[in-house]
């Protein structure tokens, strides 16, 4: 059992358990922390697959920026375990069942899919140089277009975020 495999299984178990932690922990803050942990595990997988740069970005962008944003909001609303609304057991059960059912069905569907193996041979496609080249040659249009996305997101933040007059239930 190579280190590679050990690492793989370790990261897998960690990812799954932390993910479960996200959805099971009552306290939102814990959920956030679990999620960050999950991201770390996933980044580990990236490293295993020679996507080093992605791993870093994942840590920085997701764990660093986005999750902090979440954390920030949660703090702002100071949500905690006892303010946390809980669905009744039946609904949660139904959720688990349906999600599990989907999982099993897709699993059963894909059990016979192609079985080629990822060899550990190191590739350099994950390096910044290559990624940058690809990004700015082949994927330059999406790169530019995504600015539109950000623009609209920005507008959204403005339009939605700016405080206006108080709530008043007008029809329609």
């Amino acid at each position: 059992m190579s280190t590679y495999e050990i690492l793989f299984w370790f990261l897998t178990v960690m990812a799954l358990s932390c993910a479960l932690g996200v959805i099971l922990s009552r306290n939102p803050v814990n959920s956030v922390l679990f999620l960050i942990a999950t991201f770390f595990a996933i980044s580990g997988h990236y490293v295993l697959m020679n996507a080093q740069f992605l791993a870093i970005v994942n840590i920085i962008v997701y764990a660093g920026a986005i999750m902090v944003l979440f954390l920030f909001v949660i703090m702002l609303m100071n949500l905690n375990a006892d303010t946390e609304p809980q669905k009744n057991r039946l609904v949660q059960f139904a959720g688990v069942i349906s999600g599990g059912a989907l999982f099993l069905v897709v699993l059963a569907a894909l059990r016979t899919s192609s079985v080629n193996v990822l060899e550990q041979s190191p590739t350099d496609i994950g390096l910044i140089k290559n990624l940058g080249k690809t990004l700015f040659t082949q994927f330059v249009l999406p790169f530019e277009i995504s600015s539109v996305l950000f623009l609209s997101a920005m507008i959204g933040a403005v339009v939605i975020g700016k405080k206006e007059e108080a709530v008043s239930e007008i029809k329609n």
Partner: protein
Amino acid sequence: MTNLVWLVPLFPLIGFLINGIGWRKMPKGAGGVIGSLAILASFAVSLGIFFEVKSSGTSTVVHLFDFIQSGKLYIPFAFQVDALSSLFLLIINGIGFLIHVYSTSYMHDDEGMVKYFAYLNLFVFSMLLLVLGANYLIMFIGWEGVGLCSYLLIGFWFKNRDYTNAAKKAFVMNRIGDLGFLVGMLLILFNYGTLSYNEFFGQLNGGTVQLSPNMYNWIAICLFIGAMGKSAQIPLYTWLPDAMAGPTPVSALIHAATMVTAGIYMIARSNALYSLAPMALNLVAVIGLATAILAASIAIRQYDIKKVLAYSTVSQLGFMFLALGVGAYTTAVFHVMTHAFFKALMFLGSGSVIHAMGGEQDIRSMGGLGKKMKITSITFLIGCLAIAGIPGFSGFFSKDEILAATYAHSPIMYYLALGAALMTAFYMFRLYFLTFTGSFRGTHDQEHHLHESPAAMTIPLIVLAIMSVIGGYVGLPAVISEHHTFNTYLASVVTNFGHHHLEHSTEWMLMGLSTGLVIIMIIVAYNATKKPNFKPNTGLAKVLENKWYVDELYDTIIVRPLLALSSAFDRFVEKMGIDGVVNGVGKTVRWGSDRVRLLQTGQVGFYIFIMVIGMTLLFTISFFWVQ
């Protein structure tokens, strides 16, 4: 002359149009005059035609225009002039004219007089179509036309709901018969592709198309059903007595002399067919005989003067059908003629009586009218003698011929028929004695008003009386003269079926027997009515008075169930059943909408849940159901 035949129905039509269009503007008198003149004119033409046909003995078809033409189906609007039709022309126009004249005075006080004459002319027109038509369809046109006119005339005094009910009853019952007629026609058309008499009869005797005798029977029976309706035979006879609701001259013309004999005419016309259909013939005979007896028995216990006459008409029609049934077609036609004379006479007489009594029709409040109204009573007596079959009067000859023919066919039938004849004699003289002899039983002012009718009414009576005496001598029985004028005249059209020639001795014997018994019956009637007492009837008499409860029977077994069924259809099948289903679909949709709508709980979690379930199902289908 023959090709001028279209004039014959034309005159009444013109009369109808004039009276019909100007019926509110014209003076009453004018209407009567126009009406009568129209009939007179066409009578003149028909006389001409009659003698021409009599001399030549030919039968000609006058083609007017194409009526229906569609593919193989071709029905021209054509008239057939031969011995039979020209004879009927005479009867219809002759008696028609007399009755028109009679009506001018009888209907004089009625505000609808012009309209009345319009209807009357229309009737004559349709009747002429009926007898003149060269194919069954034209006959059918007239057939329904006379039905319409009788409807209109029975319901002439339309304010009275009973009268209009009677009219409706008459029309509907005729329609039932007409359906039979229609089916018969279609059968002929189906098998022979034609409706014209000449082609059809030509096919019948020695044509290319040969059918099973069964088919002949069916056609004949279908046509006979039509005749049942029109000529008031069992089971469709009940409309005729009710038809007495119409004005009396109408009863005389339509419901005694002409229209009701249309059935006999039709069967006589299609004798070639019936001679091939023995089963149908027997049916005709049986029905006729039964009707004769039944109607006669009812007539014994009637008190309404017109009802008595009506039932006697039904019974006489029964005799005619009996004659047809035993194959003596000419005899039937002969009886049609004589019956037309004396029955019209008696109706008109009764009309004169009613006139004098100021509308009273119940013979229980009459009596002794003979003193006040000589002419009426004498002519009426002649009529009674004729119908009772006293030798020397027209009725004797025709009826005796029928009885003879029946005897030749089967003695049992003969005795039954004889019984009916005796009953006829009884109720007729009962009527006569109660009305014209004895002492007056009505109120005083009625008695005060009693008077003989004006000339316009009496002259037709007298003419008809003369006819009812001498009318029979055209057909002397074989024992008296071998030469039977009437049969020889009709021979070109009508050929009797089976043999009716008895030994002279038997024939004498039959004559004697019937005559003797009739005289006895008259005496019995006289005794029965010498001291009239009208206590409520009991037992059989009551049954007879209530016409064997046939109307009630029909009401319970046909009318009520039909109405019940109809309202059941309307209420349950229609509203609740079919419409219920249709509306039910709409309701279901709304209901479903109301339920499905509730899925939209507003909970995001639930929405996603549904979505996930959906995904799972779609995956299952696409992976594990399709493959």
